[in-house]
């Protein structure tokens, strides 16, 4: 039997407002801690090398996700340069309002590694960006680094 009762008058439609009132503090983990400290102190990207798969994974991890071997400590410091694997131009904010200026986001494959980082591309016009373009990281001044991905301010063409 189907439910047959329906509201007949639109003003009877009601809703109750609420929220999930939590905030989060995420720790980075053992490998993540090393990754972000390397960014702050050495301006290098930390990857982890898996001998079985013969690949360096970025960001560094304590395990290789493909063969499940422990690669904790097999860290390699890589130069913060890479190529643009793909990119897009953002015109709107997360709440739907228009951005003042369009923003470039790119997936940057770090040189020497499998994988890379998602980050902003600046100091380049969107129409000049090409897949395969070489870029390098621009870091925030050392005293402004907090231990997060934004310690890299953006990537720019080499």
């Amino acid at each position, binding site marked *: 039997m189907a439910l047959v009762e329906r509201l007949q008058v639109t003003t009877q439609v*009601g809703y*109750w407002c609420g*929220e999930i009132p939590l905030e989060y503090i995420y720790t*980075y983990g053992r490998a993540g801690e090393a990754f972000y*400290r390397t960014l702050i102190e050495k301006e290098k990207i930390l990857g982890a090398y898996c001998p079985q798969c013969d690949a360096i994974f970025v960001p560094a991890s304590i395990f290789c996700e493909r063969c499940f071997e422990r690669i904790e400590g097999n860290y390699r410091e890589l130069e913060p340069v890479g190529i643009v694997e793909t990119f897009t131009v953002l015109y709107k904010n997360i709440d739907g309002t228009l951005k003042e200026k369009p923003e470039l986001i790119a997936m940057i494959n770090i040189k020497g590694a499998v994988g890379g980082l998602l980050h902003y591309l600046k100091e380049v016009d969107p129409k000049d960006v090409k897949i395969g373009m070489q870029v390098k990281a621009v870091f925030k001044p050392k005293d402004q680094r907090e231990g*997060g991905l934004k310690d890299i301010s953006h990537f720019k063409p080499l």
Partner: protein
Amino acid sequence: MLDPERIKNTATKLSFEDIQTKKVLSFKYKPNLKYAWDNGVAIGRYLAELKNGRIIGKRCNSCKRILVPPRLFCELCWRPTDEWEYLKDTGTILTFVVSHVNWDASRVKPGQRYHTPAVIELDGAGKDQGILHLINEIEPYDIRIGMRVQAVWKPPEERIGAITDIKYFKVIGG
């Protein structure tokens, strides 16, 4: 078979101070999780009646319960429910709690009243058919299971159509 040495090395113990003092790095984030939950037919009527100072339920003729909060289908008999029926705003305490903690695990401050929520079986709804609400106008530790209670409503101009239109239930004699 469990290797205690290996287990010890699996996790690194931290304290909240380690995060505050940046002994370990972390990232703070508050997601924007706001909702407007559609009431639907049944809860819509329930809240509208609460605004009028009345509690309404919906009868299931199969199991003979008066369901409160009302639902369009009975989850036990798995069929649509039947007539709407008003319930008295009196009932019996089935169980209760004296809570010294708030919703976020912080402690109730000295001088503030402890929270005393209870499951109250409303008269006429059926055996064990209760609703969750608060008890007041009695010392928390004087409450007993089985006490008779009655709703204390907000004045009509303050009611908005919410479960909080009933301020709390108070203990009555008999």
